[in-house]
């Protein structure tokens, strides 16, 4: 009796983790640093969250569909260097479009591998991640490329409307559009069904392959736009720009409350996760903590949260099993779950 009550409290804690993490970061920040809760701070968190935020927003529908995209960092690097390298050749705007096109193309490759060749999305995107990370190094001979037209992207980081910069606004607008897509349109709602139970979704007449392909392509496009925006605003294309962004991006999505198991999540929660992680990073920076210690923090946070998610889901299954024992047998049947893993 006692144990189940403690378990229920823990479950509630996991549900409200976004608020818990944010409030904790804000309290610690306000206590340790004098000018933490200022508009200036909000401005800087929003501005810098935009790049990580676009990656995390791209990952959110992928995770809702029960898949993963590990190539987001490599896509970011590839789009960034494409944009900067093509700038002197074809002009800034076409180069920008080409950068986005590269993201779309890699997303398409991932989609083909996952939907047509039926490779597990973890392994497929792990492979494409390695391929495009080394292609980025090959194309640039492992050196960062300086932009020939550094003025072009300058506007992206200028502040407009008090706390926003154009790139932060792009991030928020896309998050709202994605929220409308996921919650108020039939294709968006179908995505949750696909992530919750692929077999049931396709039995209900949903074209699951189309949904899976779409989220993989969308993720590529979003990472591509993150790469384009980052390289233009820094006026540099770095072949390793995205190499350490995968874990923070997944962490931001998971802090927001979209679990790796699929079928749940929301883009606005991801916005919250991105802001929470961004505030935490800003807090650590203001304390002079080196970047690898920040890596440790976001890595530990990720491991902690996915462990809690996992425990919460097994607890839920255990509690439903008392009433629907037969259902549980079906849903945890290993053959079925293995099929889902290898065939989807």
């Amino acid at each position: 009796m006692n144990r189940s009550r403690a378990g229920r409290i823990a479950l509630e804690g996991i549900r409200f983790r976004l608020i818990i993490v944010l409030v904790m970061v804000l309290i610690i920040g306000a206590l340790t640093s004098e000018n933490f809760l200022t508009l200036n701070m909000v401005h800087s968190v929003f501005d810098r969250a935009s790049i990580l935020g676009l990656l995390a927003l791209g990952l959110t529908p992928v995770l809702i569909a029960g898949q993963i995209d590990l190539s987001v960092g490599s896509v970011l690097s590839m789009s960034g260097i494409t944009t900067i390298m093509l700038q002197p050749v074809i002009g800034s705007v076409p180069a920008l479009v080409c950068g986005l096109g590269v993201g779309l193309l890699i997303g398409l490759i991932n989609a083909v591998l996952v939907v047509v060749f039926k490779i597990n999305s973890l392994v497929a995107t792990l492979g494409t991640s390695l391929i495009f990370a080394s292609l980025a190094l090959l194309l640039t001979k492992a050196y960062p490329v300086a932009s020939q037209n550094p003025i072009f992207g300058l506007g992206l980081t200028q502040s407009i409307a008090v706390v926003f910069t154009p790139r932060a606004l792009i991030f928020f607008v896309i998050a709202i559009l994605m929220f409308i897509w996921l919650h108020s349109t039939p294709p968006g709602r179908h995505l949750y069904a696909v992530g919750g139970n692929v077999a049931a979704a396709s039995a209900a007449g949903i074209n699951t392959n189309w949904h899976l392909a779409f989220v993989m392509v969308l993720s590529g496009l979003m990472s591509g736009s993150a790469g384009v925006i980052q390289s233009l605003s820094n006026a540099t294309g770095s072949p390793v720009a995205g190499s350490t962004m995968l874990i923070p991006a997944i962490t931001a999505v998971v802090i927001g409350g979209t679990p790796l198991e699929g079928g749940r999540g929301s883009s606005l929660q991801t916005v919250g996760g991105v802001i929470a992680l961004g505030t935490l990073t800003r807090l650590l920076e203001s304390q002079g903590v080196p970047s690898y210690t920040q890596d440790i923090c976001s890595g530990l946070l990720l491991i902690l949260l996915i462990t809690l998610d996992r425990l919460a889901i097994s607890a839920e299954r255990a509690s439903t099993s008392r009433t629907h024992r037969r259902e549980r047998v079906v849903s945890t049947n290993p053959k079925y779950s293995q099929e889902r893993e290898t065939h989807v």
Partner: protein
Amino acid sequence: MSDMLMAPQETTASTKEPRYSTPGTWFTRLAVPIALVTIIVIGAIASPKFLTQGNLLNVLNANSTMGLVALGITFVAVSGAMTDLSVPALVALGALISLGLQPTLGPVGAPIAGLAVATVGGSINGLLVGYFRINPIIATLGTGFVLLGVSQIMTGGGILYGQPSSLSNFVGGTMLGIPVFVWMFVVVALILWPLLSRTAYGRWVRATGGNYEAARASGVPVRFVKALSFTLTGFLSGLCGVLIALSNGQARPIVGAGYDFLALTAVVIGGTSLFGGNGSIVRTVGGVLVTALIGNLIILTGLPTQSRNLVTGIIVVAAVAVDAYFRRKATRA
């Protein structure tokens, strides 16, 4: 139902035979020999240096540390946990500790400490994947991120230097004309090969990866088996790091970069499925030879070194696509 019937058969049948005789088994059996012959022919045509004793010994020497990791990954893959992406961090920990603690623990104590810490790191992965049932790729990606941060704190982002000792001279030297690195790989492979193919424990590993629920129902300690695969990989990654650090006399946090993918490629080329159930050490040794020779070919033909990773990535995707294709065919039949 058919899986339940398979289980008792398996204990009596010869363990040499794979459990499922799919078209894929023929493919995976012949792929490595064919690939080896093809590469040797191409290599002999492309470069006169390729088929010299010096070059081949160099190839073995340079790849036996990666091979050690691949042997560990084989256990992880066969037990159904795909791969361990924290390998670069575990290699770095082994390497940095074996040099950094030399002043306090001595030239032998420090490498032992390095091995121990990497093993503990591996068992953390094992705990997360085996007992908490977290997705192995995400879990090890996370622990790798954290442990790499830890190793960077240890060096402050710089390089650690070690003192030469009789142990480091031995590790970097040769025995009977063959480098000690190669001996290490051969000895570990000879220990692990019967462990996976001939013992009850090896059957547990294959059963866990083949059908998790059926294995658990038949009393296999599935959680422990998965956890131990990661612990073994941690130990072998640590050994890899210790060997590199001692023979080079220096180490930095990026020492292990790329080992995860190279080892994964070797395992996959060998024909061990990432989704568990079958695979063997012999296949992985074949896979290590193929990846090693491909890498050597790329260097000898003067292509940029980054193209090795490009080729590696393409091979992984292609091999997994083939595996997925045969698996679907097998389940339909």
